[in-house]
Every structure is written in C-alpha cells, then in structure tokens.
C-alpha cells in the first residue's frame, strides 16, 4: 500500500499547469516557509472566465499534487464557478489524501480564493469580504 493514491502520484510526477505567468490578472499566494508549504496560483481572466492558470508550489508531494489538480479543476471555468471549488472536491478528485495531508487541499482552495480576491482588488470589483475568510490561517500563523 503506497502512501498516496495513483492520482496523487500522477499529479505529483507530472504536474499540470506548473510555472509562472507574466502579467497575470490575479495572483494568490498562501502558506508559509516555516510550515513547509507555499502555494502560488496565477490566473488569466477573460470575460470572467479563467482562460489560463499556472501554479508554483514549495511543499510535499500532496501539496504539489493538490495544486496541480486544483488548476485543472478551475481552467476554463467562470469566477463564480471556481469560488465553489472546495478542498473536499480537490481531495476527492485526487482519490483521497492521508488525514495528515488534508491541509494541502485546504491550501489549494485558499490559493484559488486568494487569486480571485487579488483579481477583484486589482480591477476594483466589489465583493463580499466574508467570502474570502481563510480557515487555514490558524495553522499557518
């Protein structure tokens, strides 16, 4: 029995959408170096739709796999749609994560939200701040 599912290992070994983006419309970075994981997601937005997405991650296998899966899940989706992507959905798409690795999927959800928030901020778009609370902030203080 391996530590991770085949899906996790596939996304870890062959991460989708890895890299950075010049002139991204929204960038979200969450996590911190002390805790050993940082995720950064870059969004290109056209007509409220994610036309391109890239990510960079410092972290363990499941952090890299969660980022990769999350980018796949939001590519081509509208902003309203991607804000409904939960850590649970990321975890399920990866065929599960070990219990002590679930926070990696939470980081992925947060990174997406942070990138959308950044897009709204940069473009002066009004939003409900409550929508962008960060449940993982406590363990990454």
């Amino acid at each position, binding site marked *: 029995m391996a530590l991770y599912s085949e899906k996790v290992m596939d996304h870890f*070994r062959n991460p989708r959408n890895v890299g950075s983006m010049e002139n991204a419309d929204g960038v979200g*970075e969450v996590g911190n*170096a*002390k*805790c*050993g994981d940082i995720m950064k997601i870059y969004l290109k937005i056209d007509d409220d739709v994610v036309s391109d997405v890239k990510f960079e991650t*410092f972290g363990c*296998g499941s*952090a*890299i796999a969660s980022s990769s899966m999350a980018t796949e899940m939001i590519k081509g989706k509208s902003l309203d749609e991607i804000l409904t992507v939960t850590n649970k959905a990321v975890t399920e798409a990866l065929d599960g994560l070990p219990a002590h690795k679930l926070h990696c999927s939470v980081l992925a959800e947060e990174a997406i939200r942070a990138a959308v928030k950044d897009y709204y901020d940069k473009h002066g778009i009004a939003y409900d701040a409550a929508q962008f609370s960060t449940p993982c902030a406590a363990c990454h203080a």
Partner: protein
Amino acid sequence: MIYADNAATTKMSRKAFEAMLPCMEETWGNASSLYVFGQKAKEALEVARSKVAACFGASPGGIYFTSGGSEADNQAIISAATLGAKKGKKHIISTTFEHHAVLHTLKKLENDGFEVELLDVHENGIVSPEQVAKAIRDDTALVTIMYANNEIGSVQPVAEIGAVCRERKVLFHTDAVQAAGHLPIDVQKQNIDMLSLSGHKFHGPKGVGVLYAKPGIPLVNLIEGGAQERGKRGGTENVPAIVGMAAALEEACANMEKNTAKVSKLRDKLIDGLRKIPRSILNGDEIRRLPGNVSFCFEGIEGESLLLLLDDKGICASSGSACTSGSLDPSHVLLAIGRPHEVAHGSLRLSLSEENTEAEIDEILRAVPEVVEYLRGISPLWKDKLVGKREFLLPE
C-alpha cells in the same frame, strides 16, 4: 534499487540468517524447559549472550535481551530514575536531540516529578564533557546521552562523558542503537553503566535488542512474567532472533575496521558531491560522524517531495521533514542544531552500509542535484530568494 537508508534498518546478513535457521528448525525448544531439548535452546541463548558481551568488553551477566532499542532505552531510564528517587535524586541530564524512545520516557518522568535538563548540542551536534560536568548536581540520578545521532550522525565523546559521570558517581546510560556494530565500544574503558542497542541496525533481525546494565544496577521490570533474563524481562526468549543478532554483531565487530574504511570513503565522496549543490549544508560534525551517515539540508525545497522523486529513481532515502512524520514541525534534531524551520524542511538523510558501491554513489550524485534543481524550479520560495524578495538562509 539503491538502498541508502541503513540508519532506518539494514538487510539481514547471510551469517545472521544462517545462524537463525537451526533455532527454528532444530533447537526450537523453550529455553526455560528442564529437558535436554529445551536446554539446547538455553545453551544457544547463553552462547549468544557471551558473544554480545564480548563485543563490548562486558560481562555476560550484564546483558539483557529485549524487544529492541526502544524497550532497552525505556528500561534503562526508568530503572535509573527509580533508583535515584529512592535516594531523593530526581534530576536527569540528557540532550535535546535524543531519540524519542529517550525523550518521551523523560517526558513521562517529568510528569512524575523528575527534573529533566536537556543539554544543547551546538551546531555540530556534539555535547561536551564540560557541559555534562557543569550540569551534574548532588541530586542527579542519571546522565543519558546517545552514542551517535540517528539523523545527523554526530558521535559524542562518550568515554569522556563516562569519566565525568564516574567521577561524580552518577549513572551513565548511552543509546548506542546507531553505534553498535559500527563504532568500537568498550563499556569498561568508556565508563558506560548502561547501554541500549537494536539488532536490525547492524544486519541482524528486527524485534530484538539488548540492554546492558553493569552488574549491581537494579533494574525495574517493564514486562512482568517468568524468570527469563534473570527475572528482569518476562516472556519466552526469542531465541532465533537473539542468536541471529549475536551472529550479526559478531560479524560486524570482526569486520569493523574494514567496513569503516570502505563506508566512510563512500560517505565522503557523497558529501563532497552533494556540497556542490548551491545553498546546501551538511548536518552534523564533519569528522566525528558515523561512517555511513550523510545528512544535508537544501534551501527552497521540501524533503518529502525530494524523497518521492528519488524513490522514482530507485533510491531509498529518508528525511527529517515534517511532512514525512505527519506533524507540522520538522525534525527536532535539525532544530536542535539550530537549523531554521524553513531549512529543516528541506532535509535528506542517506545512510550507507558496506553493501553500497561506488557506482551507486555516482548514481545518487546524478539524481539528487537533478531533483533539487527541478523542485527549486517550481518553488515560489526559491524564486523569491533568487529575485531578492526573500533572504537566502544558507551560504552559497
């Protein structure tokens, strides 16, 4: 497969394996039975005891067989603490980077009213005899300091610490799990009162170990039962494992010089090669270190991803990263030698044995820099450092 995790466990030697077989196929009796068939098992047990004792300059009467290093550590510390408490001594000295078998036992004693003082091990991972001398008080019951560290390989000045303890009449225990079979040990010359070891760290079987306690030191039983191990460790003796361990230890001690020469040469080649990776640092003292231990931190990456990618390349290694242990904190050993959390997350331990070859070292030296470079390439942390948004923590 390239196996470079010999500090975790080792492959059983052919000699150990062959020594065990007859104990399972022929003399499989209960060593406590009266009849000749049982007494043959008893004989094998006592021969093993003498062999083990001979490897440490100990008397066979001081050797107690246990289920492994952890049990031996627990029993040694609990026994010394109990003895001390009877005399009103409830102060224990140890170090910040001991194995958890020691640290968790000490934590338990602390909850029971003992005062535990953990000495600093400095950046090189070595505690000095002067520190120990300074820390010893009239109410010190025990000094317990590991012989060599399991993660960073630094070897402690055990004989000098033993001399300090002897002079001050304080019991000295050493967790020699990583040292036994790899470094010369003499309990008399080094003034070691108690010592723990584990069979599977020197090509013996798992699930068996030794507690050495100088005759006269009263042991507290962790497992009550029969009269086995002179009444100090209940349970029918695992004769095959004990005999296998003794054979492995005898072999390791007989070949120690030869193995050390070979393994330390491979180690040094690996260290020299890995050093060339920018922003990397060797953990543990460069000279006073286990022949097979190589421990590094690489800035800007996380250790688990490194291990998984090395595994894909057929290399078995280990890390002190938080992600491999399931907690958010990285290795207490790396923190104890002052590595910042961020740097400690990017750790790699490669532990060699005499079975490793130079070709394997070359292969590792091809794989590690490649994987580190790849992971740095996708790390936002590393990128921030490159563009000056964050500071580098390790020298170039």
